[in-house]
């Protein structure tokens, strides 16, 4: 038993070493210092990330703004550079396919504005290649119609005939002849017809 008590005491003493373990002086200060340093580091990292994120967001917004503005500026320029629609001499009523009714002649400006960047670039290139010299007269003289050509031929061959042609003066007052309604003549027919 004495040996058993001795062993118990020895064990307790050995375990007391665990209990008596002491850190180097200033453990609390070192812990607090490390926590402070770590929290500062994390805070700085958070700020850095926030700044980087904000800068990236600003850059994206600026880039989007610039690209949208460039598209808006490109669309009117493309319209201005479009060649004027060529006048076609009327040769009877034009026969149009149903598809043609839905897609009128020149490329509309709205379509250009809504085109993708690639498309707008291609359109601008196409317009630049089709650019024509500036016209001396505005509006551009259109070819004469058939009736105008007939009138011109008449004026060259018979100038006097032009004088005889009635010309409508817009400012001349229109004389309206009063309408006279005569009473109906009495007929000798049977009265049944009136019924």
């Amino acid at each position, binding site marked *: 038993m004495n*040996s*058993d008590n001795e*062993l*118990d005491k*020895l*064990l307790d*003493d*050995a*375990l*007391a*070493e*665990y*209990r*008596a*373990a*002491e*850190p*180097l002086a200033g*453990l*609390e200060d*070192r*812990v*607090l210092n*490390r*926590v402070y340093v*770590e*929290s500062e580091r994390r805070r700085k990292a958070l700020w850095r990330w926030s700044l980087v994120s904000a800068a990236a967001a600003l850059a994206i917004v600026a880039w989007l703004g610039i690209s949208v503005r460039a598209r808006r500026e490109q669309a009117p320029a493309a319209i201005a550079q479009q060649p004027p629609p060529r006048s076609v001499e009327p040769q009877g009523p034009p026969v149009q396919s149903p598809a043609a009714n839905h897609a009128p002649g020149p490329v509309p400006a709205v379509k250009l504005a809504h085109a993708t960047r690639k498309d707008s670039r291609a359109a601008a290139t196409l317009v630049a290649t089709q650019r024509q010299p500036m016209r001396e007269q505005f509006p551009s003289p259109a070819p004469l119609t058939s009736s105008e050509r007939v009138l011109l031929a008449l004026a060259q061959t018979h100038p006097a005939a032009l004088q005889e042609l009635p010309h409508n003066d817009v400012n001349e007052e229109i004389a309206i002849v009063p309408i006279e309604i005569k009473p109906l003549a009495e007929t000798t027919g049977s009265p049944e017809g009136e019924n």
Partner: protein
Amino acid sequence: MLEGTDDWAALESVVREHSRFLFKVAYGVLRNSHDAEDVVQEVFLRVHRSGTKDVIDMPAWLARIAFRLAIDRTRKPQGAALDDTDIPSAGASAEHLAIDRQRVNQVQRLVAALPDELRYPLVLSAFEELNSRQIAELLGISEGSVRGRILRARQILKEKLSAQMEKKP
């Protein structure tokens, strides 16, 4: 995360109150002062991040974190061998000086050689700050198991010590 002056004051209070106890818990597992101190610092870094709002039993909660961190450290290859461990600067009383230093070291080697499921309850039972219920919660076992494992560990140590004493009279 703890922020502001009040929170910092609260954290400082917790650090000053419990860091030595946590050092002992970590030291009981690691048997190395530097590693134990690292564990204590890591515990309070976690406390700083998570806060202590919903904590009911602060010493037990902190001891659980320290114990788990220390266990994680022992699983890493950098864990110090028993022979490399340092002896803490214990308060050297006259009683301690009277004990045969060699025998104490011998017992500690035997404790360190115990399987973990016996060693941890035994070592944790050495701390007055932890009762058997808290140790049971910390280890995730029942209170009865804690007592049983402590008794079994002591029995094994006694047998080994007596066997060694018989060999070296």
